[in-house]
């Protein structure tokens, strides 16, 4: 009944082809709209209307990081590249102030993110030149420390977490633990009193001490901590006495004792852990010893073992001026490691200097 049925089919082809021709590929459509050779397109409204100022050389820069930096949920090679100026990644010296307040954008983000942009931009734009806090004296140069303090004080943080006081909450938690463990808040000066007399008084051969003392500390060939100490001791002793240099190279590579196995009985002749107090002082120790130059040298645990002519209590030896000139960057009371190694160790010394600990 439909005479056109079979006959019309041949005519449908040209229609279809016409339809196909109308349905341009996205690339073609984009090229037609933008008039450029932008390689990738997306379904969103044409980009040409939104980012005409993007320079052709800008999109060349996108190739490396297409889409990665802004659209992680759309895959790596989605064209929606927000980091057109990704070249800044490769450029050096682009600290924030150097970065323009208004970043170059290939296209604005869709949806609701588009709305706040003008406000935030305008907020950044509002930055008045020379209207920073403080007296507007052009000759006034801020010191770094002063500037940081100023920044800290003047920053206004939003009330994002009302009714929260972490300091108080943390203190409550600690006091609660103290009360749970002790029934009350104990006398904290016990920390200062209890520390000194007990530990150094413990003998190396003391059974209790032996139980408590890790095998890796007592055994120089098993203890990294002690190994470091011995190495350091060796380092320092070489400067003055060279007494224990023979033990130094034996600890080139140490391994721990089996953790869960039976305790290796410590060798009574080996130095106890208290000997580690001879080790190099921390920056804190050094500063204290320098600043307390007029007072008696800080108490040290009783020396067990060979005398250590180290710069350990250096305060009486240093003048106030030279003491204040001390800097952790250039302390240099110790000989160079290479020199020490050359003098002491028959083996290659690959261990770096462990001056502080």
């Amino acid at each position, binding site marked *: 009944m439909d005479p056109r049925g079979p006959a019309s089919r041949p005519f449908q082809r040209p229609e279809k082809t016409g339809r196909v021709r109308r349905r341009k590929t996205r690339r073609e459509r984009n090229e037609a709209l933008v008039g450029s050779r932008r390689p990738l397109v997306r379904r969103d409204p044409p980009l040409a209307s939104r980012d005409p100022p993007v320079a052709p050389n800008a999109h060349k820069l996108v190739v490396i990081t297409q889409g990665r930096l802004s659209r992680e949920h759309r895959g790596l090679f989605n064209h929606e590249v927000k980091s057109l100026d990704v070249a800044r990644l490769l450029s050096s010296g682009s600290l*924030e102030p150097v970065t323009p307040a208004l970043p170059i954008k290939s296209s604005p983000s869709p949806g609701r993110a588009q709305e706040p942009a003008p406000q935030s931009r305008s907020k*950044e734009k509002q930055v008045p030149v020379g209207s920073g806090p403080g007296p507007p004296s*052009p000759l006034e140069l801020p010191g770094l420390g002063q500037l940081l303090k100023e920044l800290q004080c003047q920053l206004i943080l939003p009330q994002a977490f009302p009714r929260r006081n972490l300091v108080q909450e943390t203190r409550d938690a600690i006091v609660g633990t103290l009360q749970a463990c002790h029934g009350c808040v104990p006398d904290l000066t016990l920390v200062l009193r209890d520390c000194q007399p007990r530990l*150094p008084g413990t003998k190396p051969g003391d059974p209790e001490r032996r139980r408590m003392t*890790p095998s890796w500390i007592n055994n120089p060939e098993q203890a990294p901590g002690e190994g470091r100490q011995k190495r350091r001791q060796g380092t320092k002793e070489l400067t003055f006495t060279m007494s224990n240099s023979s033990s130094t190279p034996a600890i080139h590579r140490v391994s721990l004792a089996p953790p869960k196995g039976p*305790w290796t009985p410590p060798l009574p002749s080996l130095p106890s852990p208290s000997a580690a107090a001879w080790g190099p002082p921390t920056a804190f120790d050094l500063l204290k010893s320098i600043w307390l130059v007029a007072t008696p040298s800080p*108490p040290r645990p009783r020396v067990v073992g060979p005398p250590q002519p180290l710069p350990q209590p250096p305060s009486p030896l240093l003048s106030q001026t030279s003491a204040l000139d001390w800097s952790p960057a250039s302390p240099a009371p110790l000989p160079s490691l290479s020199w020490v190694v050359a003098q002491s160790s028959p083996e290659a010394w690959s261990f770096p200097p462990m001056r502080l600990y």
Partner: protein
Amino acid sequence: MDRPVRPSLASLSDFQFGAVTTETIEDALLHLAQQNEQAVRDAAGRLGSFRETRIVEFVFLLSEQWCLEKSVSYQAVEILERFMVKQAENICRQATIQLRDKTEPQNWRALKEQLFNKFILRLVSCVQLASKLSFHYKIIGNVTVLNFLQALGYLHTKEELLESELDVLKSLNFQINLPTPLAYVEMLLEVLGYNGCLVPATQLHATCLTLLDLVYLLHEPVYENLLRASIENSTPSQLQGEKFISVKEDFMLLAVAIIAASAFIQNHECWSQVVGHLHSITGIALESIAEFSYAILTHSVGANTPGQQKPVPPHLVARTLRAAAASNS
């Protein structure tokens, strides 16, 4: 946005000590010690810090809201501090140049103002970056960040968020995997566990986290007390303060003090043993551990607050230490 009760850390229940081989622990400990030594050396040239209770609290609470690990919040604080110091350095540099060239002498003030305006954005970027350094499934997405900012009245686009991240990254030369004291604490706890410490490491760990929070929050007061105690003088000079920056960067010292304070809180009887172990492992002097622990503990029970500075009597510290030394000899 606010949570009345601090949620317990999900990671705590999964935390396990003693699962790593001794060789690994040894290597990691030595690596940390080297890293720390380098950090202390590098800190000598630094002239300022950017750590304030309000800011640290904000980062911590934000991390809590986003269910991030403790390590992430510490790392975020570290990243933020270094970024701000870099920015301040840049402003100072700009100011110097502009003063020298006598061109637009006020521009550095605009930079400063710009830094002010973008601070919250930078802060959340630091937290976001820190989250990306942690577990991949806990990364904070852009939408989360934008929603948070929007709730606070800060309207930013994703592009600006991205720009902000890039600024932080580039300011720090993409080196944002900064060490935190938590790594030192956990490593030392691991070693203590192997060495037969009487107090269980897991027990100490929980208290250590709380104490570390407190030290982060009260960073300046705690170290101020330590400085005063170390010089037996309540008014440290500027030079002394500058020299003390290296002590502030000594995470090994902080870690042993945290663990010692934690041991004191948990089990006073075993405190000496724990301190002895710490002393043996790190070589840090006993009195340094005691002094620092004391400073932390006094702040922990509320003797000192940022508002009302009541310094630890340094003469008491020194006198006690001298008495202890005398009793030793």
